[in-house]
């Protein structure tokens, strides 16, 4: 017994302590519980993994029966295999660094203990998500991280834009979750279980005997869930708005961990997806479309966090591309390297914002290289990593994906390469606008304290060297031999694309700063379309949100409820009254009128009887 349950239990305890008593505790104690609980979780992960190596088969712990009814039997069970191991290390490791960083970043904010309580709660649910041994327990984590995302996006609850963004994130995710739920229902009906081992075991054993359409349906429904959580087309719209939350939240939840849950879930379901080439193709195409679309938007934004948010959407698209072409381990590899460099980009951006007392507009930055050198250095490390410059971490994982894409369909490779160039361009655009040229703002930039720069340093090292954790090799037993042939030419092409993006960015924002203006005005309508994010939010509002709200108010409540149903009810009341007064006429007391009624009544009876009899 490895007591896997302790891993999420530590942060849960931290949540309970800080959530209940945090307001009355001194800050150092809040920090101790918040960071200490995650540290313990991290150490327990190391202990468990050390005890379970080489972890060739999945290790499962069953705790209790959660829901049993009819043919449904779901246990509260945890499981660790190599995929879980990678996720556990990423979640607790990055989570620990971000908790430490937050001590400095949040030092002067109201709601300090509330912030850490939510962050701990997030860790709890995220760990449940990756430890789950069946879909329904995974769904606990899935919904729970969504809840924490909602609470933390809306952390500044006095700001309407923040609470709006939180609500939007929750609701958009719920749309995806319906897909996920339906996927579970069909899985349950098909396999009689939601347990990973049972479902995948049956899928592999029965393979061809299963109805391929059912499998495709399950996979596509699960994918709908994944597009919500992992911000893919068409449900990505909540993630850019999620930047309303404090920056450590953007780094932890909306870059490094939670948003990769969809990628993880699809990779976890690989035995199902392998049975459905159609579903895999859809995964790859959704990923590609998202990658390209978000990258184009990222090139035009001026809010530093929005640039990185679209970058996250785009990079998640990359991961889905990897999954879709069957390179699951490459996709998971990219989860890890992306967690390193994107967490660093956000935390670095947070350090910049911190230095400028809250400024997020790239146009109000510039020349900060000498003023905040540590932040500059670490952001540069993250930038070269994401741009795919060898030998840094992003190069390794991105190459693994692109090579696999080429083996699957060369056009996917080429689209991926163009995206890689755009990625390098927008990241260095942010770097150049922020750190080069002259300072355009009026704050007094200052370097962040050690408690913030230390985690940045660790992440910088990971971003630079993390590519040498050979995740694809480690995961090979799980996903089988999926190695695309190594092709130096293709590698050279993708590296060249990244370098070209950096060079172009240098040209635009350092060498000839008037160029972007000229190009964007030359592009005119196209530029405005991209700058305004293709007006997708506006379209959703006009097509879905407003009709639902206004229609419900005017038609359903105003007409259906008030007029039709209640009209009928009140009408029945009025009818009863008028029948009553009508009946009074019968009892007028006049003998002659009674006689008339008798005659009329008899005639009617005879007529009815005759008609009835005749008709029969």
């Amino acid at each position: 017994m490895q007591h896997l349950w302790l891993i999420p239990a530590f942060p849960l305890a931290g949540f309970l302590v800080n959530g209940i008593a945090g307001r009355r505790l001194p800050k150092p104690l809040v920090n101790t519980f918040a960071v200490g609980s995650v540290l313990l979780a991290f150490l327990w992960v190391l202990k468990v993994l050390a005890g379970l190596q080489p972890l060739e088969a999945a290790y499962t712990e069953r705790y209790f029966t959660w829901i049993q009814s009819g043919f449904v039997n779901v246990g509260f069970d945890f499981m660790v295999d190599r995929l879980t191991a990678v996720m556990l290390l990423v979640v607790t490791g990055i989570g620990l660094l971000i908790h430490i960083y937050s001590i400095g970043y949040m030092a002067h904010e109201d709601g300090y203990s509330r912030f850490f309580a939510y962050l701990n709660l997030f860790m709890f649910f995220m760990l449940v998500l990756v430890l789950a041994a069946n879909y329904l327990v995974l769904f606990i984590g899935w919904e729970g991280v969504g809840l924490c995302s909602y609470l933390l996006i809306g952390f500044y609850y006095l700001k309407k834009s923040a609470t709006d963004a939180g609500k939007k994130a929750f609701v958009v995710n719920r749309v995806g979750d319906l897909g996920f739920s339906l996927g579970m229902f069909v899985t349950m009906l098909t396999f009689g279980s939601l347990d990973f081992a049972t479902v995948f075991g049956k899928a592999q054993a029965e393979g061809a005997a299963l109805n391929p359409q059912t499998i495709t349906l399950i996979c596509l429904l699960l994918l709908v869930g994944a597009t919500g959580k992992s911000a893919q087309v068409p449900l990505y719209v909540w993630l850019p708005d999620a930047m309303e939350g404090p920056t450590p939240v953007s780094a932890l939840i909306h870059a490094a961990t939670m948003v990769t849950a969809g990628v993880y879930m699809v990779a976890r379901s690989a035995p199902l997806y392998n049975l459905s080439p159609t579903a895999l193709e859809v995964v790859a195409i959704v990923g590609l479309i998202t990658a390209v679309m978000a990258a184009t938007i990222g090139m035009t934004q001026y809010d530093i966090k929005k640039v990185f948010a679209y970058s996250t959407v785009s990079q998640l698209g990359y991961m889905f591309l990897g999954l879709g072409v069957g390179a699951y381990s490459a996709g998971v590899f990219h989860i890890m390297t992306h967690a390193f460099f994107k967490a660093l980009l956000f935390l670095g951006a947070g350090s910049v914002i911190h230095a400028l007392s809250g400024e997020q507009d790239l146009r109000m930055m510039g020349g900060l290289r000498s003023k905040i050198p540590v932040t500059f250095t670490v952001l540069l490390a993250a930038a070269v990593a994401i741009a795919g410059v060898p030998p840094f971490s992003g190069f390794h994982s991105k190459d693994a994906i692109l090579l696999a894409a080429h083996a699957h369909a060369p056009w996917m490779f080429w689209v991926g390469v163009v995206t890689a160039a755009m990625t390098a361009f927008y990241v260095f655009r942010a770097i150049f606008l922020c750190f080069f040229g002259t300072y355009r703002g009026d704050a007094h930039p200052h370097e962040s304290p050690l408690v913030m720069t230390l985690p940045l340093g660790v992440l910088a090292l990971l971003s630079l060297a993390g590519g040498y954790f050979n995740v694809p090799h480690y995961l090979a037993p799980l996903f089988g031999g999926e190695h695309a042939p190594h092709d130096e030419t293709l590698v050279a092409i993708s590296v060249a694309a990244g370098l070209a993006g950096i060079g172009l960015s240098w040209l635009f924002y350092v060498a000839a700063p008037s160029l972007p203006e000229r190009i964007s005005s030359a592009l005119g309508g196209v530029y405005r379309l991209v700058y305004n994010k293709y007006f997708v939010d506006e379209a959703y509002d006009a097509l879905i949100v407003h009709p639902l709200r206004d229609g419900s108010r005017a038609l359903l409540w105003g007409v259906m409820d008030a007029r039709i149903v209640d009209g009928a009810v009140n009408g029945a009341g009025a009818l009863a009254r008028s029948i009553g007064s009508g009946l009074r006429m019968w009892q007028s007391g006049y003998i002659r009128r009674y006689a008339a009624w008798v005659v009329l009544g008899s005639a009617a009876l005879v007529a009815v009887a005759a008609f009835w009899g005749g008709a029969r």
Partner: protein
Amino acid sequence: MNLLDIVLLTPAAGALIALVLPSDNPGLLRKFTLFVSLIVFLLSLALIAPVNAAPGRYAIESNAVWIEYPAIRYHVGVDGLSLWLIILSAFLTPICVLVSWKHIEDRVKEFHAFLLFLLFGVIGVFVALDLFLFFVFWEVSLVPMYFLIGIWGHDRRIYAAVKFFLYTMAGSAMMLAAMIWIYNRAGTFDLPLLLDMLRTRQLAFSAQEGFWLFLAFFIAFAIKVPLFPLHTWLPDAHGEAPTAGSVMLASVLLKLGTYGLVRVSLPLFPDAARDNAPWIIALAIAGIIYGALVAMVQPNMKRLVAYSSVSHLGFVVLGIFTFTQVGLDGAVYQMLNHGISTGALFILVGLLYERRHSLEIADYGGVGSVAPWLSTVFVITSLASIGLPLLNNFVGEFLVLQGAAQAKLLYAVLAGTGVILSAVYMLWLVQRAFYGPTPDAVKHHVTDMNGREWALVLPLVVMMVWMGVGPQTFLPSISAPNRQVLELVSGKPQIEKSAQEVAHVR
């Protein structure tokens, strides 16, 4: 006199005693009622062990002649289906006394007598096994609620009370007519006896007869549920009722309808139930979506919660008419869940009303800043209500939707949209009432919860978590009677697997 009789009769005795207590001592009346209702609650807990020992049968039963001719019996019994509903009613009554502690100052004696009388009525419906007795308790539960709304309600209380009364009476009249018809055919009102006669073919309804009888019962139950489009009395009743009235109405009285469907309609008229399931499911799904959409645009908190009940109860009806073990278990479990979480919502809205004296959402805002714990509990309850895993409603909704998917995937797709919409209306309510800047009127009047308020809210929160994490406390005893209902409906024995057996294929 066995335990069940005591559980049933104690509230009635309490109501009578309350009536003779001095009316110039409201404190005594409150304490007395709290004491009696707590006693009933504790006694009801004692029912668990015997029922769990034999959940599919009437573990405790009383059967005596009440009226010689026509043959009407005092026949009561408790099984796994009624057990938890009895406990729910007894659990909520002391909470209702506590929530009215400061709020009800007018005619305190009558108020508490009605509350105990109401408890008597609803427990009576849940235990009655004689159709006529069932009908009597059905009406008994109606009267106190009518007065609770009509006397202690808000401005339009008379309209709301009369609408509630007439709607329900219209249904009960049809139910009574159907019962008399059955009596004329069978010579008894006794439900187990009737089921026996049906099984042994001593009694059989023709298709047409079965349809009309089913319909008569169905309309009575559907009004109570309420099923779309018979729901329009509910927002008015809730909007005008005092807090305790809203809690009992939403948490218990609505369940009389869904309970009746499972206890009476399905076993007595299995063929008609099967034949009519498609349009009933259509109405249930329409209600899920419709209730949620209309809840979304309500400016008044209580009406918002009332419309959300229409949506939630749609899930219950959907689950019942899937005729699957999973769906039916989920439906019964969802009755309990809705009782806890919607009851809690009405209490919390009531606490806000006592402070700010308004139910309009627009009069609130920024409550989170001035009453953080009240807001926290409200958010937890909202999350329970919208079906977050590890909280109660999730389990019920999951099972209902799984059952719906088993019947037809499209049902789950359509009903599932209600889950999305529930997040929209609840989170929008939370945002408007609890987040944002705090207006002066809220700042000056809204305070956080006091000890008494904690005492009445905390048990509900505990139950939300318990029922979400440990549904196996409840589900096995619910499954057993449901299995028998399904056997009657499908005409075939249901495959029963022991938990251990199934655990292997988890």
